[in-house]
Each structure stands twice: as structure tokens, then as C-alpha cells.
């Protein structure tokens, strides 16, 4: 019998970074910006949080650490770092109207390099005497789950065993879904993504909406990186460990048809596919496990194809996705 009680919590833990990443990217794409720099943004968010908490942990004695500060310092650093990446992307693509694909790829190069550089040389740069970046104290605060979760058997393990960022992720996804569907600002934002010229004529400030949506989207995605390091990886930074999750988050946006609410389940499903190879008995055959790791990508491809086959109006991407807007060009 397949062990769901141990499988689901791990799938969720894998899924949360994807959920945050895809929620942020959905918001961004709704404004017409296709941000391929998302993997870079998530790396920068993660490493900024690590730098913040590293500074705090090395300068504070373990017993005098304050739980509130230990959580809020990395959180603020992470948000600030990913906000800067968002601003950079907006400045290049919205203000300077650069090609979005190229800007995004350059941001990924930069962001991944930035993460690996500071992850690899933070200890050297700060002359501290620890062997590796292992922020176990901070991670403890991030991972803290409800104290009675352990007493509730399978229910506790499946629903209550996660750190607070996981619940924050769900809350953000739900509020994004509400924002896009049910508020005037959300309607305006969708209008900007569909047809900026019409939105502009209707008196919507296209540039401001694009900037806000992209920057907030990047901050949400950055949290995904933070969750990965602080919760999933228990505060241990290792270079390139975050891997290709950023790209998968972008794929999830399409998988969910730009609906953050659906994204909650889809990202957990993807998280499950990501680790399914650990749960399928293949014996000693390591090679076959490598083939199982293809699953999330193959599923994404299948979904891409199915979506394009169905061609329903509601499932179309924002019409102006990937294009810069210049008022004087019609």
C-alpha cells in the first residue's frame, strides 16, 4: 500500500516553494510581464534571507536570540532583495522597454550567480569561524509547527505539521485569487495585461500597475526561496541545491491557467511528482529513478499540449504577455 501519510507532507514541503513562485509569477504575468528571471529572483530572495539571519545568528548568543527578530530579519531581507530584483526587471522591461525574455534570462544568470557567490563565500567575507552555513536556530523558528500537531495522528501529520510559511503561502495564493477575480484593482491589472492601450485610454496607469504587480510578484516568489532554505533545507545553504524549481514554478503558472487558487493543489501535485521516485519501489536500479525524475516535466508538457488543444477563451494567456507597451506606438 502506498504510504500516503508520509508522502503527502513531503509533497507539500516540496510544493510550497513552487506555490509561492507560481503565485508571484501569475500576478506578474497578469500585468503582461513574462518574468523568466523568476529562478534568479527566488535565489536572491533565499540568499538575502540567509545573509540576514547569518548576521543575526553570528552576532547574537544562542540563548539570547529573540524568536520575533529571528523570523522577521530574514523575512525583511528576503523581501527587500527580491523587491530590488523586481525593480530591476521593471526598470529594464517597462521603463526601458527591453526584450522580456532576454532580460529574464540575464536576471536568472545574475540571481543564481549572486546566490551561489554569497552562499559560497559569506563565511570568508565575514571572517567568521563556522565551517558552513547552517542556520539551525533560525530554521527552528521557521519550522515551528503547532505544539499539539504530533498528538493528532495522521490528521496532524497531513495538515498541521508544517512551518508557518507554508500556511502563509496558502493565504497569499487565496488572497491573490480573490484580488484578481473580485476587486477593481484586480480587474484593472487584468486589463493592463490583456490590452494596455485600451487600459491606458480608460485612464489606468499602465506603468504603475506593471511595476506594482511585478515587484509584489517578485517578493512573493522570493519568499518561496526563503521557505526552501529555512524550512525544507533546515537552514543549510548548499550551492545549486534550489535547482530548477524556479522554472517549474513558471510552468505551473501555465498548468494552472493563471489561477492562484488552483495553484495550491497543482503545486502540491508537482511537489509530489518531484519526489515520487523516492516512493516507487525500483529496487537497486538507480537508472530507472532518473527516468522517474522526468515526470514533472513530462506532465507540464502534456498540460501545455492539452491546453493548446482545448483553445477555450478563459484559458488563454494574457493577450499582451511578453510585449512592451509604448503609448506612442500603435
Amino acid at each position, binding site marked *: 500500500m502506498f504510504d500516503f501519510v508520509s508522502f503527502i507532507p513531503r509533497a507539500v514541503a516540496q510544493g510550497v516553494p513552487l506555490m509561492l513562485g507560481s503565485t508571484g509569477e501569475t500576478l506578474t504575468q497578469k500585468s503582461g510581464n*513574462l518574468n*523568466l528571471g523568476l529562478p534568479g529572483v527566488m535565489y536572491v530572495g533565499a540568499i538575502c534571507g540567509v545573509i540576514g539571519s547569518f548576521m543575526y545568528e553570528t552576532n547574537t548568543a544562542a540563548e539570547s536570540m529573540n524568536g520575533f527578530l529571528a523570523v522577521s530579519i530574514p523575512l525583511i531581507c528576503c523581501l527587500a532583495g527580491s523587491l530590488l530584483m523586481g525593480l*530591476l526587471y521593471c*526598470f*529594464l522591461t517597462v521603463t*526601458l*522597454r*527591453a*526584450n522580456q*525574455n*532576454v*532580460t529574464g*534570462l*540575464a*536576471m*536568472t*544568470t*545574475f*540571481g*543564481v*550567480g*549572486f*546566490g*551561489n*557567490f554569497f*552562499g*559560497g*563565500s559569506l563565511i*570568508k*567575507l565575514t571572517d567568521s569561524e563556522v565551517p558552513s552555513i547552517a542556520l539551525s536556530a533560525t530554521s527552528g523558528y521557521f519550522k515551528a509547527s503547532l505544539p499539539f500537531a504530533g498528538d493528532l495522528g495522521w490528521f496532524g501529520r497531513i495538515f498541521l505539521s508544517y512551518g508557518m510559511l507554508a500556511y502563509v503561502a496558502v493565504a497569499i495564493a487565496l488572497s491573490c485569487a480573490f484580488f484578481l477575480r473580485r476587486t477593481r484593482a484586480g480587474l484593472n491589472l487584468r486589463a493592463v495585461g490583456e490590452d494596455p492601450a485600451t487600459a491606458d485610454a480608460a485612464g489606468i496607469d499602465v506603468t504603475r500597475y506593471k511595476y506594482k504587480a511585478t515587484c509584489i510578484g517578485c517578493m512573493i516568489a522570493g519568499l518561496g526561496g526563503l521557505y526552501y532554505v529555512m524550512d525544507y533545507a533546515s537552514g543549510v545553504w548548499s*550551492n545549486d541545491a534550489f535547482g*530548477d524549481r524556479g*522554472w517549474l514554478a*513558471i*510552468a505551473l503558472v*501555465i498548468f494552472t491557467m493563471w489561477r492562484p487558487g488552483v495553484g495550491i493543489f497543482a503545486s502540491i501535485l508537482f511537489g509530489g511528482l518531484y519526489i515520487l521516485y523516492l516512493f516507487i519501489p525500483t529496487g537497486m536500479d*538507480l*537508472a*530507472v529513478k*532518473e*527516468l522517474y*525524475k*522526468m515526470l514533472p*516535466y*513530462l506532465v*507540464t*508538457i502534456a498540460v*501545455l*499540449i492539452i*491546453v*493548446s*488543444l482545448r*483553445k477555450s477563451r478563459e484559458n488563454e*494567456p494574457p493577450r499582451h504577455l511578453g510585449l512592451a507597451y*509604448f503609448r*506612442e*506606438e500603435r
Partner: protein
Amino acid sequence: MNNGKVRVPLLHISRRAALPWYKAWGIRAAAIVLALVVCGLITTLLTGEDPIALYLSMLDGAFGTSRRAWVLMQNVAILLCVSLAVTPAFKMRFWNIGGEGQVLVGCLATAACMITLDNVLPNWLLIIVMLAASLIAGGLWGLIPAFFKARWNTNETLFTLMMNYVAIQLVAFFIIIWESPAGSGKVGIINQQSQMGWLPQVGPNRYMLNILTVALLTVAMYVYLKYSKHGYEIAVVGESERTARYVGIKVERVIMRTMIISGALCGIAGFLLVAGTDHTITTTISDNRGFTAVMVSWLAKFSPVFMVFTSFLIEFLGRGASEIATDFGLNEAFGDILTGVILFFIIGCEFFITYKLHFRGFKTRGAAENV
């Protein structure tokens, strides 16, 4: 109204008609210089070293010894090959960011032939079979997303992206099957004794053949895009699919044909990597060139001739930056940061080539002319 006063915005942006090429490249050169200054500043802040020493160390890293210069040229050649490969697709507005995967399957096909056929065929025939296999594998990897794009307009950016990871896992699968020595988790040098399937050395250096091949490909791609009927069709489809349909171009066929060519050229890059230099296969053998090539091609405005310069520039900067990193004891990822900064500047400067800024102060005279 307000005594006839008109409110003039501080800044007004308009599109330039066209900029002579030397001015455009002047702006780009200025951006690169500015980027290098910023990179110097960043490095000085982090290491406290003299910036001049940094630039010297960059030059030394790229050209310091003849070996380094050859390695640099070899890397430029492979990057150029991948960039050439993705270019026809981009001209068609088909965002092929799957160069990475297409190179990898090319590598995989080449390695597969080298491993399984080394005692079956004579060396010259083996090399031909390897080349053909890599062409077919790369072409197929490019054709799959193109087929769905042409038929059902499936999003090609994400499709090609996902194909990269499928290719990576496929390579990982075969690496475990072929691993030697057993348990090492990698494929050692293939056919080390017999050197079966290794490309012969031409001229003074073993990299020479790769460089010559890519030089030929560059000329061929230039001619193909500029003077052939196919090249013209690609340009029309890229500018406007509707126009292309109207004049009777079979858009679906052009998309699929172009992506086969694009993928096959990536396959050649993989062939050159495995048979020409590395003689082994890893999941990271392509070293993100599929992504870097996108930027190289775009920076060169999809012109194969300019791509020689841009791929050289990117490789030189990357090599130089990693030399800085080793010289000053920094993590090697520092090179990526510098490359990123330089790219931001180059990307940003395109704005000043396409558009013109009018400030309020200068406007008083110009306004009358503009009306």
C-alpha cells in the same frame, strides 16, 4: 487657456527613425565600458583590490598563456555554434530556449555511437555515423515542440524549456547505465586507449578543427538567412504570420523545418563537444550555453557576423571574471554576477538606440520644429 501656456512634461520619449550603425555600436560600446567600470567597483568593494589589477587579471585569464587563448577560442566556437543554431528560430519569433536540451541529446547520440559501435565500424565511418546521429537527435528534439507549435500553437518557450530537463534526465539515465568505472556515477573518458570516434587533430592545436567547423557554419548561416529562399520565408513569418499566409508561405512547414535546422545545429555543437574535446558526457556538459546563446543571438540582433563578436565578448567576460574570482579567492559564481551586470547594461542601452529622450530645457527650440 492659462494664457496659452502648455504644460510640457519634464521628459518626453520618442522613437528614433534610424541610427547609423556606427552610432548604435558606439552606444553599445559605451554601455560595455560603463558596465566594466561598475564591475570594477563591485569587485573593489568586495575585495579591496586596485581595479586596474582586476582588469589586468581579466586579460590574463583570457589570453595569459597560449593554452588559455586556445581554450577561450574553443569556448567561443561552441557558444557561437549554439547561438547560430537558435538564431533562425528567433528570427521567426519562435522562442527556442531549449538549446540546452538539444545540445545534450546531440552529446548523448554521439556518446552512444562511440560506446556501442567502437569495435564495429572503422574510425572514419564511425565519425560519420556519430555526426548523423547527433544531427538527427538534435533535430528531433527541436521538431517536437515545433510540431505542436505549428499544429496547435502550443507555447514554445515553456515547451522547449521543459524539453531541457527531459534531456538532462535522459542523459542522467544513460550515465548510470554506461558508468565506468562502475559505481563512480560518471562516464569516464570514452575509448581512451583506442581513441575511436575522436575527431582527428587538424593544424597546431586539437581545438582547431572545432573552430574551423564553426567558422564554416557561421558563413553558411549568414548566407542561408540572407540569400536563400528559406531565409526570406523565415523573416516573413517572423515579421507577420498573417502576411506570410497571405503570400502563400506554408507557415507550419516553415516553423517545423526551421526548428529541425535549429535543433540539428545544436546537435552539431554537442557532437563537437563530445567527439572533439571532452570525450565524455555529463549532465552539465552544455554548461548553460543554451541559455547564454539566447542572449548572444539577441545582442547581435540575430546577425551571424555580429554574433562572432558578442559570443567572444560573453566568453571573454565570463573567463575573465572567473579568473578574478580565483585570483582573489572568491567563489567562482562571481563570474556569473559580473556577466549578469554587464548584460543588464547592454540590454538597457538598446533603449537609447531605439528611442530618443527630449528634456524640457532643450525643448523650447525643438518644439516649434516638431509641431
